[in-house]
C-alpha cells in the first residue's frame, strides 16, 4: 500500500448527502475480475450522458477540479452495500482524501485499506470549506496527516482526529498484509520447523 504523504491538492466539491456505494460504482461494473480500473466508472450514472459523453452539469466534471485529490462532500458518505469496489474506484480516480461530517462504517474501514484518508469534520467546518471552494474553484488545501491538520488559503484551517494505529499504518503505507509481514521472521521459523517435522507437506505433487 502507498504511504500517505503530506500534500497540497485541489479540493473538489460534491455537495450531496447520503452518497451511496451504488452511486459511487453502479452495480453493472461489479463483475470484473480486476480491482484496478474502477476509476473510469466512478459516479458513472451522474458523470456521463446516455451517449457516453461527459455530463457537464455534474460537479466533478468542472474543469477547475481536474487533478483533485481531495473530495469535500456531504453527510453519511459511502452508505449502502459493503462492496470494496467503492474505495477502489475513488482511489483509482485519484482521490486520497475525503472530508465529510460522517461516513458509513464499512466504507470508512475500507478507505484505510486503500490508502484513503477519510477526515471527519463538524458541520460548521464543512460548510466553511464548501463555501471556500465555491468562491474559489480550483483552490488547493494542504493536508498534513502527521500533524492531523488541514490548512486552506481562506484560513479555514482545522485539526482532525484519527485513531493512532490507523494513522501509523497510513503514514507507513502498511496494509494488513504488511502488518502480518512484520512477523516474517517468525513465519519463516515456523516454516523451517514444519519442513523438518512434516517434510511431505513441502513436496511437489
Amino acid at each position, binding site marked *: 500500500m502507498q504511504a500517505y504523504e503530506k500534500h497540497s491538492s485541489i479540493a473538489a466539491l460534491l455537495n450531496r448527502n447520503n452518497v451511496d456505494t451504488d452511486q459511487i460504482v453502479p452495480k453493472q461494473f461489479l463483475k470484473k*475480475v*480486476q*480491482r484496478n480500473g474502477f476509476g473510469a466508472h466512478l459516479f458513472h450514472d451522474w458523470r456521463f450522458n446516455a451517449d457516453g459523453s461527459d455530463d457537464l452539469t455534474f460537479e466533478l466534471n468542472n474543469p477547475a477540479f481536474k487533478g483533485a485529490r481531495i473530495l469535500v462532500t456531504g453527510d453519511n458518505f459511502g452508505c449502502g452495500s459493503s462492496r470494496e469496489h467503492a474505495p477502489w474506484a475513488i482511489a483509482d480516480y485519484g482521490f486520497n482524501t475525503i472530508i465529510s461530517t460522517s461516513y458509513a462504517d464499512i466504507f470508512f474501514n475500507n478507505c484505510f485499506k486503500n490508502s484513503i484518508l477519510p477526515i471527519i469534520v463538524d458541520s460548521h467546518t464543512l460548510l466553511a470549506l464548501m463555501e471556500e471552494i465555491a468562491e474559489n474553484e480550483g483552490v488547493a488545501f494542504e493536508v498534513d496527516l502527521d500533524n492531523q491538520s488541514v490548512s486552506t488559503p481562506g484560513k479555514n484551517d482545522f485539526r482532525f482526529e484519527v485513531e493512532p494505529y490507523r494513522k501509523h499504518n497510513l503514514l507507513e503505507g502498511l496494509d*494488513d*498484509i504488511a502488518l502480518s509481514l512484520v512477523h*516474517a521472521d*517468525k*513465519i519463516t521459523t515456523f516454516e523451517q520447523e514444519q519442513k523438518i517435522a512434516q517434510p*511431505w507437506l513441502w513436496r511437489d505433487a
Partner: protein
Amino acid sequence: MAKTMYEKIWDAHLVHEQAGQAALLYVDRHLMHEVTSPQAFEGLDLANRQVRNRHSILATLDHCVPTRDRDQPIADPIGKLQVETMIANCAKHGLNLYDMENPNNGVIHIVVPEHGFVHPGMVVVCGDSHTATHGAFGALAFGIGTSEVEHVMATQTLPQKKSKTMLVKVDGELSEFSTAKDIALAIIGKIGTAGGTGYVIEFAGEAVVNLSMEGRMTLCNMAIEAGARAGLIAPDTKTYDFLRGKEFSPEGQDWDSAMAYWQSIPSDEGAEFDITIELAARDIAPQVTWGTSPEQVVSVTAAVPAPDSFQDKIKSQACKSALEYMGLEANTKITDINIDYAFIGSCTNGRIEDFRSAAKVARGTTVAAGVTAIAVPGSYHVKKQAEEEGLDRVFIEAGWEWRDPGCSMCLAMNGDELKEGQRCASTSNRNFEGRQGKGGRTHLVSPAMAAAAAAAGRFVDIR
C-alpha cells in the same frame, strides 16, 4: 490441562500472539476456485508480492463450469472470463490447478479429500464458506473473503480471533433411512442458523463415529449453515484408512511420524467446551426443509408449520414470508408437496456414497411426469466410480440426466437453474431465496429422499 481438538490445532499453528490483538495463525492448506480469487491475485501482483508457499495450494474450476457439452466454449461471458483468469493466474504462479479437462476436476471440497490433500490437525482455508467440509478429517477448516485469500497467498498466515467451542453429541444409532444430511438438518433445526455463531463445533457421539468419511464430510459441510466458523470430527481408524495411499498422503516413515501427530489431535478426556448439545440419533427421521433458511426444517412425517405456531415474533414473521416465497400453505403435509425438479450433487451430497444410496431408491423407478431430474457427480472420479458400478445406468434408465461434475444447481452460476416458481428436491446446502435461480423454490433433503421424490413427483417417506 485437558484441551479440545480446536485448542490443540490452534496452539500448534500460532505464529505470533500479543495481548489485545488478533493472533497470527499459520495456514497449511489453501484451496481455491475461480470465483473468489481473481481480485486477490490482482492485489498480489499490484503490490509486487509472490505466493509464499505454492505447495499449500490446490485449485479447481467448479462454480462456472457447464455440466454438459464440456467441449463447447462457456456460453456466459463472465463465467468464461473467470475461468480463463483462473487458468492464467495459476499458470503464472505455478499453482496446481485441476482445470476442466483434467481427470481430477470437480467441486473443490470433493476433489481435495479425494487426493488426500487435507490431513488431521491442519489449518485449512478457502475463499468459500463450505470449507468446513474438511473438518471431517480433524482439520480446522474455514471460509475466508477475497482480501484474506490475498493475505494467505502473501503471508501464509491469517490474523484470527479465537472462537468459542461447542460440542454436539449425537448418541445412539441412526435408522437405516436417515443419513448424515438428516443429522445436519436436525441439528440446524434445533440450534438455528445462528446457533453456532462465534463457535467451532466438534461433532461426537456414536452416530457420528459410525458415519463413513463421506458422511462425516456431509455433516461438517453443513456446520456453516448452523453459523459455526468450522466443524470438527476427531480422526480415527476410518480417517487414517481413507488417507492411506492417497497422492498427497505421507508414506513409509513419514506416515508413522504423521500418525504420531494425528493421534494426538482428538480432544482430551475431560476437555471443557463452552456449550454441549445432545441429540438422540433414533429421533432423527428423514428431514425436509419447507422454508428459505436451513433451520426451517421438519421431519418428512410432519406438516409445514403455521406462522402463529412460533412464539418468537421474528421467527413467526420469517415463517410467513418464507411460506409466501415458497408458495406453500401452512399445515400442508410435507408428503403432499409436489416437485418440478430433483437435483443430486454439490459438495454436500455429491460423493460416491450419495449416488449409491440414491441409486438404491431410483432403481427400477421412473421420474414422474413433468419432473426434471439431474444427477451431477461431485468430481470426475466420483463419476467414473459410479459408472464402473453401473449407477449411471440406473439413473439414466429411470429418466435422470447424468451430467459432468461441477457446482451446478447448488448455486446456479453455470446456467443450470430453476425457473421462476419451480420447486426442487435438492441435496445441496442452501435453500435461500433465488439460490437455485430467481424465484426458484428449494427443499433440502438427503440423496435417497431426492430420488424418491423424483419418482413420486412429491416428497415421500422412504422408510
